[in-house]
């Protein structure tokens, strides 16, 4: 049935863009600061709550794209503050302890934010209005969920802007240079403290963008970021920790595998396949598909 095949393919691609957003955020922070942000799902959650509040109080459902931008900005600023006050002191320690410090801090932060969300907003689910009505492409007999389409387009746009910023601006190249070699970047006159701070803010803003874009699809509740975080970790291990192209490619691969798997294979064990893949990659090819060794001086 070609219609079904096409439908599954399109659903997979639409999810892939949003997965890429989340994974890119995790791997971007990892590439610059060499830490795993275990509270990524909570920044996703903050983005979705901000989006819901902005939609229902300030902008109204028509201006959802503006609300996404403002949500991203809000979480970006919060990310700057968190990095400055809690994570920047990790560089007092040596390599191994830095990682421990960051892990403890981000896990405690995730507990804090998640339970604070339950206290403030309650354990309820909120449902923002759909961004776009559903679209039917008559010539292909294809029906598309309008909100998924809108979130995929938004995510693609954010990805393109992010890509342009990293590749085509001097500031962006400073980030890439720092990711390749911190000492080298410092020697070239790049202020690492500032790069770290902005990188963390940008990374969590990408998670917030995913949360805000997907708010009407997966609803808004205190643990709504958990699923995306799990997918994000699987993606960055498959794509190679710290590799930006790897994250994007692996995001589409995972989304397509899931979308085909849930139609053609039983969905009960779906979550386990991802973990199995992750373990396999860690064992056989820990640098992932696109990972390269750090350039040392």
């Amino acid at each position: 049935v070609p219609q079904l095949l096409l439908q599954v393919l399109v659903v997979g691609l639409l999810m892939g863009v949003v997965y890429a957003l989340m994974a890119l955020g995790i791997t971007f922070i990892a590439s610059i600061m060499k830490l795993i942000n275990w509270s990524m799902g909570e920044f996703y959650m903050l983005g979705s709550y901000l989006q819901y509040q902005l939609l229902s109080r300030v902008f109204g459902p028509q201006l959802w794209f503006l609300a996404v931008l403002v949500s991203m900005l809000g979480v970006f600023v919060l990310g700057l503050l968190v990095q400055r006050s809690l994570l920047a002191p990790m560089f007092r320690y040596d390599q191994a302890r830095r990682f421990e410090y960051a892990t403890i801090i981000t896990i405690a932060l995730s507990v804090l934010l998640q339970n604070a969300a339950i206290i403030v907003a309650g354990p309820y689910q909120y449902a923002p209005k759909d961004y776009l009505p559903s679209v039917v492409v008559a010539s292909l007999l294809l029906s598309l969920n309008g909100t998924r389409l809108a979130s995929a387009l938004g995510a693609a746009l954010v990805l393109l802007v992010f890509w342009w910023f990293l590749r085509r601006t001097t500031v962006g190249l400073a980030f890439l240079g720092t990711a390749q070699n911190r000492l080298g970047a410092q020697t070239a006159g790049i202020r690492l403290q500032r790069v770290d701070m902005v990188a963390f803010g940008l990374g969590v803003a990408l998670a917030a963008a995913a949360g805000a874009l997907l708010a009407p699809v997966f609803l808004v509740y205190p643990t709504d970021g958990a699923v995306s975080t799990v997918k994000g970790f699987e993606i960055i291990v498959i794509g190679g920790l710290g590799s930006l192209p790897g994250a994007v490619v692996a995001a589409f691969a995972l989304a397509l595998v899931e979308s085909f798997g849930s139609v053609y294979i039983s969905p009960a064990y779906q979550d386990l396949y991802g973990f199995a893949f992750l373990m396999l990659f860690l064992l056989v090819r820990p640098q992932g598909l696109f990972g390269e060794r750090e350039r040392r001086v």
Partner: protein
Amino acid sequence: VRRLLAVGLPVALVLVALPFVLNGYGVQVATVALYYVVLGVSWNLIAGYTGQFSLAQHAFATIGAYASAVVALALHLPLPVAILAGMLAAALVGLALGWVTLGMQGVYFAIATWAFAESVRILLAVNYQITRGDMGLAVPFLFDSPDPTPAYAVFVVLALGAVGLNALLLRRKIGYRMRALRDDQELALAAGIDVVKTKRLVFVVSTAMAGLAGAVYGHAVGLLSPSQANFSQMAFIIIAVVLGGFRTLWGPVVGALVAQGLAEALRASAEARLVIFAALVLVIVRVYPPGIMGLVDRATALLDAWSTRRPGRARVAAASRPGPSP
């Protein structure tokens, strides 16, 4: 020895006195606190002293609990045998997981153990024909009664035993090897330490401890559910250990007891308690990493100074103390 007496004696006395002071509910709460004590000690052993930041300690406790339940329910063996089987199961799985993951670098090891723990939780929830999934699995009680006091006594022994084993390991060669490879793995390798073998050994001991605690806990509570393997459990272990003092012998004990005691004293909602604890951990890690045990060390140093009434010597004693990471 002085440190051991300064902290261990009061802790042991309080633990023995508790069931005479508290009602049944209080003893139950104390039992749960001791469960976290054993998990905290076992995690501190591998993460604090050996530097392998495992995120699967709660999963090994769950494995021990379910393995013991299956042996008791399906094979009808007596509970002590079942509990030992649970501990053995956790140790064997720990051996296997350690075999494949302990060669990895820090970040990858943390992700791998996290993924393993999540897989355990999903497997338990999905195979509901055996585990009854989220409905929970009823298991036989220790000593055939839901009275919490005997189970509490067992846990006092377990907790003190765990601390004792930890102290013993630290005094042996392996204890020095653990800390050496944590502080500088390449130097440890150069000094002829079999780094991976040492890690594996400690990991198996640590997972066996967690499995034992989980198995006994299951029979003390009488009901198992896959939520025992939720990541929030691991987060609570980390919070308790850091609160008490990461990389200290008595830190996990003090941390878990204080956290559980505070939680009862506050009478706030579960969420509010967790917010407070998480905020406390952020402040401790950021400002004063030695935690409560650091404060205790300072207090004993001050007491020493006061009892000898020679302030000059006290200052020297305080400075020469091993500080936050012995």
